[in-house]
């Protein structure tokens, strides 16, 4: 626990978009105001674009801030939805072409395809991203928001809701893929007067930013999903446990909670029924292990975030020893759409036991860095090359890392494997929360394994010995290898110890920590051997210490 994440200042600026337009609106300009574009002055672009449009005498256009448009690499982005035109890398002073394009929009224009990055996606959890003003309840309602909750409260019993989720085949999107309907049923049947619903928004995997984008772009969806879950499991109180590193997401959630309370979608008597449910936010404080559910519960209770053995599972004995439902952001985000469109529709998407869609964050040495949602079963090649645009500078692809510090690296020969929970485990990796980090020939796989082990030894909470001591020892062995100081005996030791840490650790952090080692050994053993036997780093990343010459 030596690192010190510090949050960016919360951004509290007045809402300036959506000035009330009396007359007909001919064209819109959607300005992406999610964190990535915000850091490149997207808010100034919204303001300047509004001024420029007014100066040009355009009275029938609306400049609107929206959530993440997905293609973060090209940000800040502005879209004209009527024509599908996209403007990338916009600056506050460079809004003139957008104004010209706005002036040229005709009512007969049809939306043009925006290229494979957008066309090959299927949006469920992210269906409103980039389409609505994240803080506007009216916008959310206008896109069918809260229809699902109203339908649930007026036409369905809680067991019907649970059945619907069960039949949809939805599985936990936080990584392990536990069937959501089954979890809901367990909580509903657990004994206890007070029950809780918790949204796990402690997205700690480095290189993953799906949850952040969903929270920043469509916060009401999470509140609706949680309310439906609360109805299904008979809970009345909810918590969103969000990282403190996401100030914009927290600010938007707070606004959304306030607005939903005022409009009667949270609090007592929701949507004029007898159903009560309220939500509070709890801030994380920079501990990766708090993504583990029992550690997260300890943290919500104001304690050190250390996990405890399961059973009892949180579904039976969770927050303040009451039955507690914990789901990830993306899981809750999928719920309203499933109930609106039906379980059959959802289970018709996907492959095998992995139904529906999954959101991935593409990052690393890839052209189209950003956020994508695709049907389960799409191949890695389609995701990385067709949607992701391939590798930067046309360099050779080496591996894609999925699943964060508990995941693994998948090499080129498996690029055609359809992505699902099962296939990734078969390949020695892990779905995880959905980060995909693409690496080219400039990355050394031993160094990558060492990087993740450094992460795990630092984030180990210290409660159990295999993880606390094991991850440090594994890191030291990897360090020796990358310095060219290791022998083949060290490699045996590394494999043996990695197995012990995997089998003996208390929680998922320790159990998953050796995965990067196993997967790189499986596919890139030659790189380990090059460091150990030939004393060279093939990628030229590691600094090999040459042994001092022995004086004769």
């Amino acid at each position, binding site marked *: 626990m030596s690192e010190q994440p510090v949050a960016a200042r919360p951004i509290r600026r007045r809402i300036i978009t959506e000035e009330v337009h009396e007359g007909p609106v001919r064209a819109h300009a959607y300005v992406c105001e999610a964190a990535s574009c915000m850091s490149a002055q997207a808010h100034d672009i919204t303001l300047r674009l509004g001024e420029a449009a007014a100066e040009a005498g355009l009275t029938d256009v609306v400049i609107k801030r929206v959530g993440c448009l997905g293609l973060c690499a090209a940000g800040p982005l502005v879209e004209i939805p009527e024509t599908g035109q996209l403007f990338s890398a916009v600056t506050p002073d460079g809004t003139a072409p957008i104004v010209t394009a706005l002036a040229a929009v005709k009512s007969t224009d049809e939306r043009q395809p925006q290229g494979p990055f957008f066309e090959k996606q299927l949006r469920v959890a992210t269906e409103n991203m980039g389409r609505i003003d994240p803080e506007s309840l009216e916008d959310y309602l206008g896109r069918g928001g809260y229809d699902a909750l109203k339908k649930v409260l007026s036409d369905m019993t809680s067991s019907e809701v649970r059945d619907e989720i069960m039949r949809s085949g939805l599985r936990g999107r936080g990584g392990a893929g536990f069937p959501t309907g089954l979890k809901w049923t367990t909580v509903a049947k657990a004994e206890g007067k007070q029950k809780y619903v918790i949204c796990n928004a402690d997205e700690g995997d480095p290189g993953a930013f799906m949850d952040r984008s969903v929270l920043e772009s469509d916060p009401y969806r999470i509140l609706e999903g949680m309310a439906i879950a609360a109805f299904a499991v008979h809970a009345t109180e909810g918590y969103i446990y969000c990282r403190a590193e996401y100030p914009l997401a927290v600010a938007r959630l707070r606004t959304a909670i306030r607005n939903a309370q005022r409009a009667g979608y949270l609090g007592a008597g929701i949507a004029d029924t007898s159903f009560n449910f309220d939500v509070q936010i709890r801030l994380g404080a920079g501990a990766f292990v708090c993504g583990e559910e029992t550690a997260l519960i300890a943290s919500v209770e104001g304690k050190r975030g250390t996990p405890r053995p399961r059973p009892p599972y949180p579904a039976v004995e969770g927050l303040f020893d009451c039955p507690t439902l914990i789901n990830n952001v993306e899981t809750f985000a999928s719920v309203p759409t499933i109930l609106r469109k039906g379980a059959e529709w959802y289970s018709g998407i996907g492959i095998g036991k992995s139904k529906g869609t999954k959101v991935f964050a593409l*990052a690393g040495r890839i052209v189209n860095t950003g956020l994508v949602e695709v049907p389960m079963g799409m191949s890695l090649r389609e995701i990385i090359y067709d949607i992701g645009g391939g590798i930067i500078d046309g360099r050779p692809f080496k591996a894609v890392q999925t699943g964060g510090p508990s995941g693994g690296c998948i090499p080129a020969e498996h690029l055609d494997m359809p992505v699902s929970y099962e296939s990734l485990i078969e390949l020695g990796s892990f779905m995880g929360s959905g980060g995909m980090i693409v690496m080219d020939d400039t990355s050394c796989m031993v160094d990558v394994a060492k990087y993740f082990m450094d992460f795990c030894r630092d984030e180990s909470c210290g409660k159990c010995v295999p993880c606390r001591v094991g991850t440090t020892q594994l890191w030291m062995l990897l360090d020796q290898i990358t310095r060219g100081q290791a022998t083949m005996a060290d490699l045996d030791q590394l494999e043996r110890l990695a197995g012990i840490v995997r089998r003996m650790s208390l929680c998922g952090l320790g159990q998953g920590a050796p995965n990067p080692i196993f997967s790189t050994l499986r596919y890139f053993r030659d790189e380990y051997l090059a460091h150990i036997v030939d004393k060279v780093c093939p990628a030229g990343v590691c600094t090999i210490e040459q042994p001092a010459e022995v004086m004769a």
Partner: protein
Amino acid sequence: MPALYTKPSPPSDDKRWKIVETRMRRMGDRPAALIEALHAAQEAFGYLDEGALHFVGDTLGVPHSRVYGVATFYSFFTLKPQGDHTCVVCTGTACYINGSKEILAGLERNLGVKPKQTTEDGKVSLLTARCLGACSLAPAVIIDGDVKGKVNVGDLVAQLEAM
């Protein structure tokens, strides 16, 4: 007869303590409010000193040992005062493979600071973060709350030296 409970008073009459007290009271002064209270105190004062830890613990009925345990467990909390400016370098995977290591090395070479240290003149504190979630901007840093993406070491050093 046991002494009647009196509400502990803040370590000083600094008005910022009111914010901390209010945050705790809203959560019923219960032990579960500990982390929220520490957030409030750090937001108000920039760091947590021993006086703050004692006051929060006494108000919420949490032993000082546990308050200290929580404050040091979470890397977000700092027990040391920070420099005038902070520079947080993201060390997430995307930033790592796009050169955050070189940024840290460059800052150490030019400003003489390692992560968690403050420059000798007290101007800049250097910190690292696990992942800012700004992977599309890799390598990313936060300077005084503003995210800067696709950072170049030379420009960053120049900017920090000018502060």
